[in-house]
């Protein structure tokens, strides 16, 4: 019996898109739980419906059927308890790093002194001190994603969703950001739902990995990753697991 507190529960969630020619199922009967403070990775092949699944959890899409619970509260639409970091830079280009990070607290009417203090804490945490007054176009791809992460943290969400946040970064910047996100998660514990199509990234980051099938996405298997952190991507155990998951992952040509 697992004693850990459950943060997020998906029960038989399905989403079908309809057009003139009938229904296109994107996700089908997906059920899983995410524990409190867990780093859970959703791994799936390209175009399998990962983003639809996340958008459904975030309330940006309504499920066709099924239920989603945050703690014991059933979710209907967007929820302030859920923060999101997107693959494409979703920063305000006309706002500085500071203004981007403090945007959420500002909208909630937090007084300036207080929200600046919060924003500064997370800007420091993601390693962007001295860039507070820079604009997004002055930053590299990896730095922009750091701003996105700081902004999500500044809202103090109960659940943080990251949708392929490193997908647009080059392989090396990606390694550096993977180390960063683990450092941030360790120092400011949050429940994280992280989506990727990269097996190596999933194995480096996750406490558990939920493997999705090709579209319509169903849960193919759940893996518990016991390797100690920081993980060595070239260790025999790591490579063995990578091969095992790879063999089980669908390919869409």
């Amino acid at each position: 019996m697992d004693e850990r507190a459950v943060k997020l529960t998906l029960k038989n969630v399905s989403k079908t898109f309809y057009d003139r020619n009938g229904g296109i199922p994107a996700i089908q009967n997906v059920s899983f739980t995410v524990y409190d403070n867990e780093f859970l990775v959703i791994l799936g092949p390209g175009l399998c419906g990962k983003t639809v699944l996340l958008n459904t959890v975030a309330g940006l899409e309504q499920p066709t059927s099924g239920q989603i619970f945050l703690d014991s509260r059933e979710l209907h639409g967007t929820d302030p308890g859920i923060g999101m970091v997107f693959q494409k830079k979703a920063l305000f280009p006309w706002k500085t790093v500071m203004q981007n990070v403090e945007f959420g607290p500002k909208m909630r009417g937090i007084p300036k002194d207080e929200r600046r203090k919060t924003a500064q804490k997370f800007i420091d945490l993601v390693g962007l001190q001295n860039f507070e007054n820079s604009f997004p176009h002055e930053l590299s791809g990896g730095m922009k994603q750091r701003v996105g992460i700081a902004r999500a943290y500044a809202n103090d969400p109960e659940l943080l969703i990251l949708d392929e946040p490193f997908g647009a970064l080059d392989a090396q910047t990606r390694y550096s950001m993977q180390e960063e996100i683990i450092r941030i998660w360790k120092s400011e514990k949050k429940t994280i739902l992280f989506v990727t199509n990269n097996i190596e990234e999933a194995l480096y980051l996750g406490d558990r990995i939920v493997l999705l099938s090709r579209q319509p996405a169903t849960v193919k298997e759940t893996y518990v990753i016991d390797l100690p952190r920081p993980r060595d991507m070239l260790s025999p155990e790591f490579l063995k697991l990578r091969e095992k998951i790879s063999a089980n992952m669908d390919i869409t040509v």
Partner: protein
Amino acid sequence: MSESVKIHVENLTKKYGDLLVLDDISFRIQKGEFVCVVGPTGCGKTTFLNLLSCLIEPTHGRILIDGIPADPKKHDIAFVFQEPSSFPWLTVKGNIGFGMRMKGWPREKREKRENEILKLMGLEKFAESYPGQLSVSTEQRMVIGRAFAMHPDLLLMDEPYGQMDVKMRFYLEDEVIRLWKETGTTVIFITHNIEEAIYLAQKVLILTNKPAKIKEQLSIDLPHPRNVSDAEFIRMRKYVTEQIKWW
């Protein structure tokens, strides 16, 4: 100089104003060789590629193909970019045949070659489809087929599999090796991904941080298809990582 040297790069240097981006790069590539170029993020790989493709002029130095200064009018230099770059108004077959039509190949020869490439890439059933009807990976396969179709003197590939999932990447990497073996084309493949470089290349050029110089040329003798879990493979991957690691 040996007769089989296809590409000869001598003292290639590029400055933008006072900013030195490439510093005195020299190397040779044999005819039919598969070379990967790796270097730290932001080291000048794109400038390097733009010089090789003659899209920009070097500040010093030169590039010879078959002993003659590289010239897009004389030489066939083909590219594959990271984002698939197809003609959306042409079918798959039309895209594959485009270069041959531009070069005035006779119709019969062109059609024969188009069909060969369609078959080689397993794209026969998509011959009459348009790029908008294909998945990104299928579109990229078509672009790669198109690039190999003309028997180019030099094929430049700039991180063509950057955004694909690992399984798709391995599949396409095996495909590119198969095409390369069948056509004997000389390939320069630029990547940030060290595992990918070791998986593909006969020779890896390791660049330094900006201004980019060649740090080392590493030969990889492992037979294809390579095993990423093989001890020698891992040793080489670790070694190259140590040479460029900044993260």
